[in-house]
């Protein structure tokens, strides 16, 4: 009888551990590393912004959820309400550009960036607001 009870307790414990482990994994499943993802598009910031301005619907279909590597001149650096660095790549003569929110692990890399620098970032496109928006960006160079 005692042996059966021990076995039942053991089985329940193992099941509870499996359920707890699965739940923890679901809750904390990490996103795919941006560094390990190959870009779907490599493009200049001005070119991407112009394409979006000329064909917003087609550009949404082409770029949303795609990894984009974009190069351009830093026009502005700020922080959002989550304290993540936000960089706007925009040419002097352009009204719009590309807004890139850096991944939270990129703070060290962001420290060396200044307005006027030419940089290359890689991130996921989520659409266009004032500028084309890239999320979870990492600095390439």
């Amino acid at each position, binding site marked *: 009888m005692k042996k059966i009870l021990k076995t039942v307790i053991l089985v329940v414990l193992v099941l509870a551990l499996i359920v707890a482990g699965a739940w923890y994994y679901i*809750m904390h499943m990490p996103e795919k590393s941006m560094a390990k993802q190959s870009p779907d598009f490599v493009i200049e910031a001005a070119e991407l912004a112009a394409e979006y301005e000329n064909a917003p619907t087609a550009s949404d279909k082409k770029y949303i959820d795609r990894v984009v590597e974009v190069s351009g001149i830093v026009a502005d650096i700020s922080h959002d309400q989550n304290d993540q660095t936000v960089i706007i790549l925009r040419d002097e003569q352009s009204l719009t550009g590309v807004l890139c929110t850096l991944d939270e692990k990129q703070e060290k890399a962001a420290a060396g960036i200044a307005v006027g620098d030419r940089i290359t970032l890689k991130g996921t496109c989520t659409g266009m607001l004032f500028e084309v928006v890239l999320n979870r960006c990492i600095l390439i160079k």
Partner: protein
Amino acid sequence: MKNGFLLFMVLFLSQALTAQNYITRTAHIHIRSDNKVQNIVADNYQVACQLNTQNGEFKIIALIKSFEYQIGAMNRVMNTRDINVTDYPRITYDGKITNLKQINFSKPGTYPFKINGMLFIWDEKRITPAQGTLTVNSDGSIEGNSDFTITIEDKNLNKIDDIIKAKLPGAINLQPNALGISKDIQVKATALLKKP
């Protein structure tokens, strides 16, 4: 659709550059839905806002794919190409402050505001009133805070059910109601607006 969005963005950008306009590219929207199994919480820090202090017009535009979910698995599923939002990638709120005369934008202080506007989500629009506070800071910036609730209609719960069935074919009888998914989504919006 193309012309409509272009016209909207041109108006949005050109209006933003006038003197009485305050804008931000990094407003924050926090949403929460309380459910029996697990609450759904998400944040979007890439929200564009524009406030016209002369006529009280207030516009908010957020990208659906810029929401970050607290549940890791949900974040991973929602921000993939499997969930296609390219037909309606933006949530837009187009409103007007109704008690504009009670707000002195040239005097620092905190002022309550009421707003009436139209919320556009997916292919739907609905009248959405809200209230909150506007704080005029001494540096000239304006901080806006608002809490409101969006109620999901039954027909849209059926849409969610269809998506669940499409993505999880085994879950034939999985109903949002059975999961205890609340019809109410609580929204909290904060924005620090500055002159462009």
